[in-house]
């Protein structure tokens, strides 16, 4: 044995020659996800007085191929809904991850019966209840702001590992009251986090093409936090529906079916089979410059 710890336990160089590191060297550098594969596109959301409305179309695209339908809006618990843009398999991973998290959270918050105000209506179909069994984090203390902070840390960690989760996520719901005012009523919460862990909030938010096509329309409805207090749920839902229509008109990777969720203090109302209604394609007549037109 010599005095060089790095040589301990290894064949002696003076007998066997220096170790040839080329034997185990990989032929190329380690790479992780370089681009998303199956993707979802726009998620749009808007705050209003007392809640948030969020919508995402139900398309999963494989490049430009419309691959299949999906659910892009995921109910986390009675206080939070997630909207996923970007890679669908990463969305599935996050869904399972958060499901496991919600189960663990439920352990530490005790069995917690009695205090839980369940929002699942009694006349829901058996299937709907089976859905809610899957994903509803009842008894989970996590409000939308907690969930957002958690996801931000998670996504930033992953990008720091050079292995990002290729999503742009909107987190909509109600925030937990601040520690210095535990009795304050929950405020509408809307923030986003992207694959780099970049996080910010705004009265209206959109991912994917929605950021270009829907965001300006939503900003006209709710320009700032002050305006949030002035509009009601019906106006907000109407604005979101209008934006989904615009996205269906102009975004080639979109679908006329979408999910829409409204979070208020009464809980989450999630509808997964909305349709774009009142379509009019007359404007298409005036568009020139591509397609089959000859003039």
């Amino acid at each position, binding site marked *: 044995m010599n005095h060089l710890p790095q040589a301990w336990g290894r064949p002696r160089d003076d007998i066997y020659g220096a170790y040839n590191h080329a034997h185990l060297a990989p032929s190329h550098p380690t790479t992780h996800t370089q681009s998303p594969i199956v993707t979802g596109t726009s998620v749009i959301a808007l705050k209003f007085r007392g809640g948030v409305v969020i919508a995402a179309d139900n398309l*999963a695209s494989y490049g430009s191929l419309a691959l*299949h*339908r*999906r*659910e892009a809006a995921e109910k986390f618990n009675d206080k939070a809904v997630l909207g996923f843009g970007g890679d*669908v398999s990463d*969305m*599935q*991973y996050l*869904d*399972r991850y958060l*499901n*496991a998290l919600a*189960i663990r959270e*439920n*352990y530490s918050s*005790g*069995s*917690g*019966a*009695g205090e*839980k105000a*369940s929002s*699942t209506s009694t006349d829901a179909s*058996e*299937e709907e*209840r*089976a*859905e*809610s*069994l*899957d994903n509803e984090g*009842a*008894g989970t203390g996590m409000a939308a702001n907690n969930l957002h902070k958690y996801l931000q840390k998670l996504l930033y960690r992953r990008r720091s590992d050079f292995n990002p989760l290729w999503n742009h996520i909107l987190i909509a719901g109600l925030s937990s009251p601040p520690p210095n005012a535990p009795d304050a009523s929950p405020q509408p919460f809307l923030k986003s986090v992207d694959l780099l862990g970049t996080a910010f909030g705004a009265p209206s938010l959109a991912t994917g093409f929605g950021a270009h096509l829907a965001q300006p329309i939503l900003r006209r409805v709710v320009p700032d936090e002050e305006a949030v207090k002035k509009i009601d749920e019906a106006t907000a839902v109407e604005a979101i529906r209008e934006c989904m229509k615009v996205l269906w008109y102009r975004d080639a990777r979109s679908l006329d079916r979408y999910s829409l969720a409204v979070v208020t203090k009464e809980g989450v109302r999630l509808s997964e089979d909305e349709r774009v209604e009142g379509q009019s394609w007359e404007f298409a007549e005036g568009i020139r410059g591509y397609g089959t037109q000859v003039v």
Partner: protein
Amino acid sequence: MTSIGTGYDLSNSVFSPDGRNFQVEYAMKAVENGGTAIGIRCKDGVVLALEKLVTSKLLKPGANKRISTVDRNMGVVSAGLTPDGRHFVSRARDEAAQWRSLYKAPIPTAALANRMGSYVQAYTLYSSVRPFGVTAIIGGWDSEVEVPVDGQVGAGPAVGAGGKKEGEKHGGPYLYMIEPSGLYWGYYGAATGKGRQAAKSELEKLDLAAGNLTLEEGVKEAARIIYVAHEDSKDKEFELEMTWVSSLSGPTKGRHEEVPQKLREEAERLAKKSLEGDDDEDDKPEGEKMEE
């Protein structure tokens, strides 16, 4: 116990000449000293109840819950050494999480009982460990309807998941009891701990196999049975802890939860009343007392 170990009880994993494992039998002794725990499998759910003996007046009433949730749809209650019970629950939760990460679905109650049975049994095989000092009761509900796969995107096949036989019943309430030896059976009604004999004879009167008892009746019976089982150690104070899990259409919507305070208090009131009734009409035959 009539015979003592005479040297064959010093090590786990050693049989006595007449084929007994004394360490396991001693572990069962530990269970017999614990507060009574029972489980009732009703037609639309499972009730778990525990006689939690109050060891100190300095403990906060209602705190330190002893019935634990595993995944979302199962509960575990145990009698015997509390720390062993907690480790048992911890392992059960790991098993449930591991099942989910592999199969993307909740673990069936029977599968959890099987895995925990194997785990407990492994602690009877080696001289470096001692058996579990608990008998645990696992109550759970498995979904009767098709549950979406965790993280499912889109609808999946219209026929649902495979592996199900036509016309056969799948899912429902289940109840298992696991003993320190690793032995486990499925039960209609299970009881363990100090008052198990009294509790078992009360459970037998309920005719649970017929499957007529509703969950709410089950809660009231569970409370009554715990009170009956407590009769022998009346001088000690205790708290009644009760949890339940119902089907999706029931009060807990397929989740294992604590029985709401209102219902528990009502059940306790009826339990006390029926015990007082017992004292007054001691000469009445057993069957009539059951009617109320």
